[in-house]
């Protein structure tokens, strides 16, 4: 499978008043085209920071210190997202990579209707397509100038068509941009707005929202949590993103809605042929949804394997402990001994060694590298040094 994103040696540090927090320390991760990669780990292990770093949305005092994030563009070449200018990065955000946030209510702007918010993204990233659709619609209308109204509106429609064509040729031409700013005159651009609204309605239908036309006019607070999350997913998908980063999208929803959203994500991912980076601390959800799973601990990737391998044959001591810690009915859960290390004073060597049952002397000194011990099964642990496979990725 072709790689979509290749993260190499990514380090993110937060320069806080108390000291430097190494949120990510040399993270290596690959996301293939069309796959769902689950990113699991405890709170504070760096899952969300990884997601934000891909979009370069780490806000001060956080900073991406080193590494590279290679992203496959349409022409089969790779670009390093960390080397792009801010303007280039903006055109990738939303159109190539989209993010779904944890709290669906907070991710929507409370003062705009659902329709306005959906069309904003569509007009921003799919302008060309919208313009073409608008020209087609006007052409159709111009052909049917049989009645009086058609004749009366003909000059206006001709003007609109020429305006849209000029937008198609040069999206940044001053005149249409100026027109878009003047209230009242702006109405000549309503053809674009209508087409964008049509796309938005079809997107809402895609995420299985009933009565999409009515929802378009409603405000976020008028919708339930599940509906809002569907709207957020529709917004993320409306620009045909190749990579969808979902940061615990079901955490704030109740279980029945969670199932619906997960089923929806599964269906949409297939339909839109995009990859999904699914950040969660819910191993059950990861097992249900993901093709591969990466386990994170204190800013490091511990183990990456296919979902079957991770659950049937976990190798890293931390993954094993994590699997045991999943509560099962009628059983006491096995808590992992010790605590998550303080981010300001991480242990030396392997960050898991103070809590690890099988810790050795070498664990206290060096942090193990991620090595491939079986096909597609990567692990960062000194226990497996001898069994290193042919290629270390």
């Amino acid at each position, binding site marked *: 499978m072709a790689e979509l994103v290749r993260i190499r040696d990514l380090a993110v540090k937060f320069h806080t008043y108390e000291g430097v927090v190494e949120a990510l320390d040399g993270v290596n991760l690959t996301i293939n085209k069309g796959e769902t990669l689950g990113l699991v780990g405890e709170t504070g292990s760096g899952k969300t920071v990884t997601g934000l770093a891909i979009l370069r949305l780490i806000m001060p005092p956080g900073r991406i210190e080193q590494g590279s994030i290679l992203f496959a563009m349409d022409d089969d070449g790779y670009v390093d997202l960390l080397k792009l200018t801010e303007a280039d990065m903006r*055109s990738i955000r939303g159109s190539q990579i989209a993010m779904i*946030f944890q709290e669906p209510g907070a991710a929507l702007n*409370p003062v705009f209707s659902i329709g306005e918010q959906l069309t904003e993204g569509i007009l921003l990233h799919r302008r060309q397509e919208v313009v073409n659709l608008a020209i087609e619609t006007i052409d159709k209308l111009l052909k049917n100038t049989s009645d009086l109204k058609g004749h009366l509106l003909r000059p206006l429609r001709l003007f609109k068509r020429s305006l849209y064509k000029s937008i198609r040729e040069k999206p940044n031409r001053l005149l249409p941009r100026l027109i878009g700013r003047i209230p009242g005159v702006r109405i000549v651009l309503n053809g674009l707005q209508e087409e964008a609204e049509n796309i938005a309605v079809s997107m809402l239908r895609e995420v299985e929202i009933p009565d999409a036309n009515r929802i378009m006019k409603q405000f976020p607070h008028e919708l339930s949590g599940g509906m809002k999350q569907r709207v957020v997913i529709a917004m993320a998908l409306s620009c045909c993103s190749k990579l969808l980063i979902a940061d615990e999208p079901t955490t704030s929803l109740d279980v029945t809605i969670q199932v619906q959203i997960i089923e929806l994500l599964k269906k949409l991912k297939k339909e839109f042929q995009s990859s999904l980076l699914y950040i969660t601390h819910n191993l059950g959800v990861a097992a249900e949804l993901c093709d591969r799973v990466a386990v994170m601990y204190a800013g490091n990737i511990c183990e990456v394997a296919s979902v079957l391998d991770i659950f049937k044959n976990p190798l890293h001591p931390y993954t094993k402990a994590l699997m045991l810690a999943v509560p099962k009915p009628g059983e006491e859960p096995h808590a992992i001994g010790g605590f998550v290390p303080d981010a300001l004073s991480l242990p030396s060597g392997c960050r898991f060694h103070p809590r690890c049952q099988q810790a050795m002397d070498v664990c206290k000194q060096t942090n193990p590298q991620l090595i491939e011990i079986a096909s597609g099964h990567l692990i960062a642990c000194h226990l497996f040094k001898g069994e290193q496979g042919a290629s270390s990725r």
Partner: protein
Amino acid sequence: MTGFAFIWYNLKKSPLSIVGIVIVFIFAMVAIFAPLIAPTPEGHYNPYMIPRAGYSPTPEPPNAEHIFGTTQGQYDILYGVIWGTRTAFQIGISVIGAVLIIGITLGSIAGYFGGIIDEILMRITDIFLAFPALILAMAITIALGPSLTTIMLALIIVSWPSYARLVRGDILSIREEDFIQAARGAGSSNFRIIIRHVLPNSIYPVLIVASLDIGAVVLSAAALSFLGLGVPEGYADWGQMISFSRNWIVGTANNAFAYWYTVVIPGVFIFLFVLGWNLLGDAFRDILDPRLSRR
């Protein structure tokens, strides 16, 4: 419910808002139709200069020729208050307009970008806020030479910092919201985020304060005029009309209310104008703030 039906629904619930709107509307009509209500006499070169019926310092009580009487120096009170309405609107709207532009721009830059930019801009506003507003306005007016323009300029200089503060505070809380991050994640530029996502969520308190402040600004301008720092003598301005009545407030030895009209009439105009804008501020809040309504 959308648009006007919704606004009307909200207004009906608060009759005081309607009173505010009516008062401001009446004042607006008075300002617009000033030439019809108080026609400028023939040969009078500047309509804003109050025509005088002589040079006697003693005010004349209301009579057929001068319905509201004349004040010190025989200036016609009716003409003064009617044309003074125009001056009041001119001061209120241009000062608040300029203050809004400056305050919103600087406040959103400081609040949104934070860091050193915020620090610099906010320390500058602190410097302005450190002076008592009216004293600073007086100093500026005296330094630049008393005139209507300098009054407005002085009021702009003393009132923008509180607006920048207000906008910044609101933006600080809004910019941490998830939907701002989401907008950034959807590829919006900083400018677009400020205009489309941050300001619509934080502008309402500012607009409400602005409409309340239009009255306050007119009051401050009147205070400056009263102190003799404002418009040239004889210019139609409520503050100056009250300053004309300064010597006549106490009345005569036998009759304390002998010259009541010199102070009460311009005073009532100022009072109603400020009251109208204050009530309108509440109305604005009812209409504009979607978080407060639309439940």
